[in-house]
């Protein structure tokens, strides 16, 4: 270990100041030594993994989360479980065609059916000036299943019967499913305005849809499985790419197709809504409680103060429910129209249409390698299927992720984001990250074999270290990550996985082939600038008001343990209020981009520090002396070195007497207006403290994972099993080991799903999705992952955030997919697959033919 203060950088000093301020417990354990070591790694000594929770009372320890008992006993109520007096049900009317325009409708028979209360059409929605924007209902459906109307009735059976009485005359419009088909000369456009999303700079920055067709020459090598690379509207580069290729010992140029994959949340986007006294009450599943209120208000064009959102439990999000989904306002509008509560249950088939999906990529990458496997140059080209609405940023994200994870000294990235008449996409765990990793990793595996370099060694030589630059320069400066210990994660992961021993084992026995694969993985993992809000109650308890959504990650309670740690309060004396926007919630980050743990431990730290300050002030006012004469520990504020003090209960009571900034009648000026209002709503309840995360940060926060997999393939059937898996995380300070393990393995499993079978299947002639049910689109089951999947983490704090914790949700996903793909090529050779997922059909036909046989560039087969 480096001498902590041998060469403190400015950043390290800043980090140290912050961490030191975290109190005796925290400062003793995270006194900046790791931070300094990370910033200025000693030449001979590597940072070593640390035991979870070392030096802490709460951070890094397992505990029972406040929502656990209700979840395991079935008492937790999700949106669909709520009932209200006089509640109606509604069903959506899906478009039967992939693109059309409603010419006329006849609702008379449907409305005449007894029990039918109302039919909602797109004309009933608040106006949307942008014709390309997704709406809850539409007169121009952009994909099969796009909802065009909704029927409210006394029950679902009546609503369904009414739907079958609706006469709709839809004019079929041109459509396209496969992005490459729309780019062909004369290829169809998914919309009258064009097929490709193009960003424009000043003077009118924005994004618009435009027609783009490539030439027949561009498509010359399509049938050979080489991705056409015509004009790409998005492009960046840095370094001398051509020189990098010239100096390379080995240059590989490969095309690859990644799957469109539905989020498949087990809770579909069901919503229940009712109105009382002009206020809208909504029960929904969402990733973000606080942030969903303004989204609903925006979609309904109403005052957010009139929206009450209840979402205590959410059955999965993965990026598809960041602020819920537009379609949930259908329940609200029908409730208004019918003047009755309306429940909109979304079926599995509807969820398949509306539940969002990851954009599939058709990609190509040319990479130059030095003899030791170091990348000399990288040229990346991706076509992103962006679905029927909106431009997804996956293509951009894929370039940045590849640039950060593999640190090419010279790189060009080009991207084409194509609209198709397929369901709406959204971010899905590691958006673009998974696709980028899935495209590059099999090429690295191939390069390692051709160069005779160990797979782990090849990744280590390319992995980022410390503050690492990535992506293109912005105003002359390339952005950089806050820290990276990915090389250490690789080293310790390889040791735990016994990589060397496994890699040296024989690969064939009987009809079975085995192989091992390793992959780098990582994704953005933190934002800054949000607020914390807590109340020290007259009973002496500490209550955290939490605007985070309960999407299953346990961040609703994990982050507050950082505050409890700083305040030295036992967790048993803490309460968390979550899942109800009427319960005075502070300004909170959306729970996407794996930012919550980072952002909200900072906010929690800030509010705990502010609380300590207020407690000291209250004590000084009550007992005399100066605030700095007091310290906080053991649920008391007391004179340093002995003497009088107040219990938290007494301090809270005194705070109420003091009023003003102490009991919520006023709040710190720097906090968001929403937090001001929330504090005001709590006024008089105790010592009410609001604070904003004003801590600095040098760099963009990323978390990293080294992923390892072993597969066993039956070469006579093509069937294979993932027989072992390890995700080793570099995710900063570990907050809650059990939740971290759940994320590392759960999200790895999502990645594995992309490798082993989950996908969309479309009939391109009819523009119809044919694999709509679980048994057809095949999300993995518990029996499709190894019995004893392993995880671990370095537990090295990020130097740019006070608690050191980074997010973890998305970083493992790409590695889950790529480690399995790499294990397959280790077992079977390079000429097996050119797309994911890889199934028995892929393997069997390719083994016989000696080359990838599966329509290499075609989407959604």
């Amino acid at each position, binding site marked *: 270990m480096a001498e902590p203060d041998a060469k403190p950088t400015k950043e390290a000093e800043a980090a140290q100041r912050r961490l030191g301020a975290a109190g005796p417990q925290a400062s003793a354990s995270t006194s900046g030594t790791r931070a300094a070591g990370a910033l200025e790694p000693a030449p001979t000594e590597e940072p070593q993994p640390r035991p979870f929770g070392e030096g802490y009372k709460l951070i890094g320890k397992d505990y029972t989360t406040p929502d656990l008992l209700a979840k395991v006993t079935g008492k937790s109520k999700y949106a669909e479980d709520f009932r209200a007096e006089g509640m109606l049900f509604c069903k959506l009317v899906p478009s039967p065609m992939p693109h059309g325009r409603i010419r006329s409708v006849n609702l008379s028979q449907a409305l005449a059916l007894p029990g039918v209360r109302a039919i909602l059409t797109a004309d009933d929605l608040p106006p949307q000036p942008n014709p390309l924007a997704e709406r809850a209902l539409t007169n121009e459906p952009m994909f099969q299943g796009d909802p065009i109307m909704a029927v409210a009735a006394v029950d679902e059976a009546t*609503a369904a019967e009414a739907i079958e009485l609706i006469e709709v005359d839809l004019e079929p419009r041109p459509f396209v499913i496969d992005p490459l088909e729309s780019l062909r000369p004369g290829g169809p456009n998914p919309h009258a305005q064009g097929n490709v999303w193009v960003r424009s700079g000043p003077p009118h920055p924005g994004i618009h849809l435009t027609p783009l067709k490539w030439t027949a020459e561009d498509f010359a090598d399509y049938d050979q499985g080489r991705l056409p690379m015509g004009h790409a509207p998005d492009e960046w580069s840095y370094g001398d790419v051509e020189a990098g290729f010239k100096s390379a010992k080995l240059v590989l140029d490969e095309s690859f197709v990644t799957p469109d994959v539905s989020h498949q949340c087990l809770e579909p986007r069901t919503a229940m809504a009712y109105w009382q006294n002009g206020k809208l009450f909504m029960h929904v599943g969402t990733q973000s409680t606080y942030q969903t209120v303004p989204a609903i208000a925006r979609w309904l064009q109403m005052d957010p103060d009139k929206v009450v959102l209840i979402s205590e439990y959410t059955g999965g999000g993965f990026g598809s429910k960041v602020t819920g989904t537009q379609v949930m306002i259908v329940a609200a509008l029908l409730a208004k129209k019918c003047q009755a509560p309306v429940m909109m249950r979304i079926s599995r088939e509807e969820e398949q249409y509306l539940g969002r999906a990851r954009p599939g990529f058709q990609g190509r990458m040319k990479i130059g390698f030095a003899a030791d496997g170091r990348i000399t140059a990288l040229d990346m080209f991706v076509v992103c299927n962006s679905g029927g609405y909106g431009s997804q940023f996956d293509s951009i994200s894929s370039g940045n992720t590849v640039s950060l994870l593999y640190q090419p000294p010279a790189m060009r990235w080009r991207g084409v984001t194509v609209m198709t008449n397929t369901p709406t996409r959204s971010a899905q765990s590691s958006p673009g990250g998974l696709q980028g990793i899935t495209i590059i990793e099999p090429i690295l595996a191939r390069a390692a074999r051709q160069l005779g370099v160990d797979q782990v060694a090849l990744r280590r030589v390319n992995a980022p270290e410390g503050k690492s630059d990535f992506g293109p320069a912005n105003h002359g400066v390339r952005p950089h990550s806050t820290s990276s210990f990915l090389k250490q994660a690789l080293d310790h992961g390889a040791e735990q996985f016994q990589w060397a021993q496994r890699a040296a084992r024989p690969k064939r*026995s009987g009809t079975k082939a085995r192989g091992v694969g390793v992959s780098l993985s990582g994704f953005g993992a933190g934002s800054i600038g949000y607020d914390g809000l807590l109340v020290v109650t007259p009973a002496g308890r500490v209550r955290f008001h939490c605007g985070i959504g309960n999407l299953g990650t346990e961040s609703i309670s994990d982050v507050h343990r950082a505050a409890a740690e700083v305040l030295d309060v036992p967790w048993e004396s803490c309460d968390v209020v979550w899942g109800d926007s009427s319960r005075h919630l502070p300004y909170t980050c959306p729970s996407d981009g794996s930012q919550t743990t980072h952002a909200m431990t900072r906010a929690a730290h800030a509010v705990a520090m502010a609380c300590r300050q207020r407690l000291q002030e209250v004590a000084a006012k009550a007992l005399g002396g100066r605030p700095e004469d007091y310290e906080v520990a053991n649920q008391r504020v007391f004179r340093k070195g002995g003497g009088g003090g107040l219990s938290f209960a007494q301090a809270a009571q005194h705070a109420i007497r003091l009023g003003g900034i102490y009991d919520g009648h006023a709040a710190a000026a720097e906090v968001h207006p929403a937090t001001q209002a929330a504090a005001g709503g709590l006024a008089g309840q105790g010592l009410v403290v609001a604070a904003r995360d004003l801590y600095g940060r040098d760099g963009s926060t990323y978390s990293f994972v080294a992923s390892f997999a072993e597969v066993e393939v039956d070469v006579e059937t093509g069937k294979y099993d993932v027989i072992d898996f390890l995700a080793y995380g570099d995710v900063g300070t570990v907050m809650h080991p059990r939740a971290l393990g759940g994320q590392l393995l759960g999200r790895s499993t999502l990645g594995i799903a992309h490798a082993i079978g989950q996908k969309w299947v*479309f009939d391109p002639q009819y523009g119809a999705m044919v694999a709509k049910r679980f048994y057809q689109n095949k999300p*993995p089951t518990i029996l*499709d992952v190894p019995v004893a999947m392993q995880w671990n983490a370095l537990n090295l704090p990020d130097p740019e955030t006070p608690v050191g914790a980074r997010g973890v949700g998305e970083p493992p996903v790409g590695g889950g997919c790529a480690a399995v793909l790499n294990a397959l090529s280790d077992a079977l050779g390079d000429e097996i697959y050119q797309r994911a997922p890889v199934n028995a059909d892929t393997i069997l036909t390719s083994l016989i033919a000696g080359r990838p046989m599966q329509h290499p560039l075609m989407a959604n087969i």
Partner: protein
Amino acid sequence: MAVVRDVMPAFDLLQPTTAAEAQRLLQQHGAEAWAMAGGMDSFDWLKDRIKRPRVVVDLSGIAELKGIRASGGGVEIGALTTLTGIANHPAIQKDYGLLAQAASLVASPQIRNQGTIGGNVSQDVRCWYYRDGWPCYRAGGNLCYADTPVGRNREHAILGANRCVAVHPSDTAPALIALEAQFVLQTPQGERVVEAEDYFVGPGQDITRINLLQPGDLLTAIRLPGTWAGARFYFEKVRDRNVWDFPLMNVASAMTLAGGQIERIRLAVNAVAPQPLRLRAVEAAVRGLPANAATGEMAGQLAVRGAVALQFNAYKIPLMSNLVKRAIGGVPEATWA
């Protein structure tokens, strides 16, 4: 008319408690009735509003159609016996391990607890176009949507296609064919007993049906003769997922050996054709030959004669060849150092 799925429409639910009563109800309501066993196939059709029977005859309350009992030299399995019940039954495990294994690989534990042997052999095809209500040949239309130049047909047929290229999805059917099972049907004309392989109807015979059952008919039992009890069995199911998946293909064989040579053999595959296929030519070709890899190799080649791949299912030809090879010659065990 707009289309809506996943909402079961109203129907009259009739719940007989005896086979005779069930048969009477089925005959009374004829083509308007839908016979439902475990519901695993029925509920999809009903919830998707594609099959719209006026009457559903729920067979699940008929105790006499459940259970396994000795019969002649073999056993008789009530058609309403669950797949779990079969997979776990000591007599089936002891003498007819082939069927126990096939039943244990169907779908998932929950589905096996609910699904019945009668339902498993009588279920409809799972072609995703047909199941989604497309007006294809099998649904009474004049097109096969899976068999077009761009139709998605990865899981479809390589043999026996006749306008329809769907495959039969049952895991237990090939095992029952290999075991020389007999199916007992109650019809308005009286009891009818058919060989397992004759129970299944291909599209060339009648494209709108998948088995012999006509309106008013009831499958009551499946009989396993003693002929193959304790024979040498092989069953393998290849699927994408390790649970809750239909077969990409399966194979079942029963054989007896004399002096290391194949004395008697029955061999069937499923998910290769619209009905389970008994491979009679292969059976004939290997009789008298040693049950080894070379015979298996030859058999595998013979089995796929005449197979025609569609756009996305070429893998099924080598897969069938290899599965037949294994069913005869076995699989060399992997021995990892």
